[in-house]
């Protein structure tokens, strides 16, 4: 017994030694910045000048800043509408791509995955062109059906939906993960449902979606985190405009930190973001526990 304990302790110590590099890395480059950012959130700090402790002054100022609420509401808009749209589209496409009856299936799977390989800056510039009100391809297509397309990125009302379109276009990674999840669902379930007379939709809602729920949870959580970090596209495509309609949380944080010399204020924003993200993800886990499928 004693010898066993010794072996276990020795193995543990050796394991710790082997991962010590990683531990040093995490402490130096993750933990320390996280802890110090909380300290800075309690100070007036411009990076260059010495920081000055002001308690919860930054948090207080944030709760009175209309831009903070604007950027938060823009981000929530994207989380609510963007996540729902991109998740629905990704599942629908994955279900279609899981249909073995379709010809050229591998080619189609590649087609849907390709957009995720396009670098962000290039994709952003491409979408600026696609969304041009006068001669962009999206409005041309809408025009073909007799519809007058909106001015997209130039309109406070349509700029965010334009970003959602782009988000759906680039959801190839989620599609692949859904596809893998779908292939895990045994055919026998569908077969027995068919024998019981279930149609396509009945099968989707009673078999596919419940069994896919852990995968959906994973994708939704990563998507929510991704939206909180949504930065490069709005910076390149709209720079927060028009009328602040695409001023998302990260963009607002970046401006405060690196353009206005308000590092303390930005740190406070980052901490609020962390708390909000944690709450949302906790809610998602609860929802999954209540409505999702678990073995």
């Amino acid at each position, binding site marked *: 017994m004693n010898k066993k304990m010794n072996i276990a302790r020795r193995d543990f110590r050796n394991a710790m*030694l082997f991962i010590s*590099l990683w531990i040093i890395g995490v402490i130096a480059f993750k933990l320390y910045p996280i802890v110090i950012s909380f300290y800075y959130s309690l100070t007036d700090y411009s990076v260059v000048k010495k920081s000055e402790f002001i308690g919860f002054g930054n948090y207080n100022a944030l709760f009175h800043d209309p831009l903070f609420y604007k950027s938060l509401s823009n981000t929530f808009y994207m989380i609510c509408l963007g996540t729902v749209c991109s998740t629905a589209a990704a599942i629908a496409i994955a279900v279609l791509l899981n249909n073995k009856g379709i010809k050229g299936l591998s080619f189609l799977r590649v087609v849907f995955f390709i957009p995720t390989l396009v670098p962000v800056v290039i994709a952003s510039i491409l979408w600026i062109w696609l969304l041009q009100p006068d001669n962009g391809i999206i409005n041309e297509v809408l025009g073909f059906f007799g519809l007058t397309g909106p001015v997209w990125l*130039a309109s*406070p009302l349509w700029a965010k939906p334009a970003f959602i379109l782009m988000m759906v276009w680039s959801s190839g990674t989620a599609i692949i993960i859904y596809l893998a999840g779908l292939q895990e669902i045994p055919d026998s379930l569908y077969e027995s449902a068919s024998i019981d007379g279930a149609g396509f939709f009945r099968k989707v809602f009673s078999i596919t979606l419940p069994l896919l729920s852990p995968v959906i949870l994973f994708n939704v959580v990563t998507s929510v985190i991704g939206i909180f970090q949504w930065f490069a596209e709005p910076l390149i495509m709209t720079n927060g*405009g028009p009328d*602040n309609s695409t001023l998302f949380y990260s963009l607002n944080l970046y*401006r405060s930190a690196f353009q206005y*010399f308000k590092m303390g204020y930005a740190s406070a924003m980052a901490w609020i973001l962390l708390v909000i993200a944690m709450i949302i993800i906790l809610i998602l886990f609860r929802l999954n526990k209540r409505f999702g499928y678990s073995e």
Partner: protein
Amino acid sequence: MRKTVSVLTAVVLTTGLVAGCSSGGGGGSTGSGTDTGSTGGSGDSKAGRTLTYWSPFSGDSQKWDQGRIEAFTKKTGIKVDVQFIAPDGGLSNGKLLAAISGGTVPDLVETSSPSRGYNFATEDSLMPWDPYLADIGFDSGSQALPGFKDLMKYDDKTYLLPQDSNVLLLYYNVDMFKEAGLDPDKPPKTIEELDQYAEKLTKVDNGKIERLGFVPWVDSGADPFTWLWMFGSKIYDPATKKLELTDDKSVNVFKWMNSYAQKYDPAKLKSFTSGFGGMFSPDHPFMTGKIAMTVTGNWFTNALKIYAPKVNYKVAKIPVPAGGREGGSPLYSNVFMIPKGAKNPDLAAEFVKFALTPEVNMDNFAQWRSIPITDDKFDEVTWTKEGDPIYKIEREEAKSENSGHPGLSPVSSELSDAITQLMDNVIYNNKDPKPLLQALQDKLQAEIDKG
């Protein structure tokens, strides 16, 4: 045995990494330390030492700067380690801030965004040029045109040293003027005239805009301070350290802009203007005939020459309302600065001394029609010698007491973003600008007062 081996391996790996990190970091500092030390010890000779320089240029301008650097090294023997960081030398993307806080600063930064540069000065992040001014050939900036003095000085020290500058002009299409029954030799001088001309030049067919006479927020009109400056707003008073955004002059800017938005429907106008190509593309609305008049910088003359040589145009001074800054212009300068902690400010001064010689700047003036910062240097520019009419107007604007760098304040960057946002808010939502300006002023004044 197994235990000893695994413990040893782990220890070696760990210490290897730590040593690697420290020797990497230390190596860097030792390297530069030796560099500075050895040259410092070698007396006053600067040859052989290395200047680290961040340049804001890209494209053709980058090639031009590269040529300038090579000529500098050839002449002085000083090596230049250059990084091209568009669009403004690392000021707006946080690079310079990170470098200053990390202690690995370049010796010299040039930026095309003087207001952001000014912000670095107010944040105590720059070193003053004053000890080097005499050597550079600058007597505390006293030779500089009046419009540059506010820019160069903060707290009685010179932090920003302009290389060259640009002015804004009203470009107008001569053929369209004739077609609308307007005299191309009598461009609009006041805002009222500008509005009347714009109306006459605008073509709307069945509710669809075919051509716009003028839109205040196209090209340089979209810059947050352009019209505030031209309407005569003080924006910020460095003497009292107060923002002055709520007077009638400031309020009228946004009311005037909104009159265009309301006349043509903001969404339609935005749709028409948002399809426009950039300044240096044949899609620019002035080149394609979608717009008859626009306010933009002297660089546009070269763009027109390249992309739309057939457009028949003239230029004039920017129209202003009564009480506005008549005959003046906002100045768009490229400025040099030394970040705090720079190890070789003397080399930076040497480079600037070289860069300000007329022969170096001449290419710049010839190609982009940019302007020198002292009046006497105008005489040496080819355009002046050739009697170019556009350059004559540029010189008059540059000399004007009404020209300057707008919006220089301890909150320049935030103010400029906030004014752009306010402009959008007024145009899209048909809001009264006065309370918005008051709220903005209160918010930013509190930050200035905090110091």
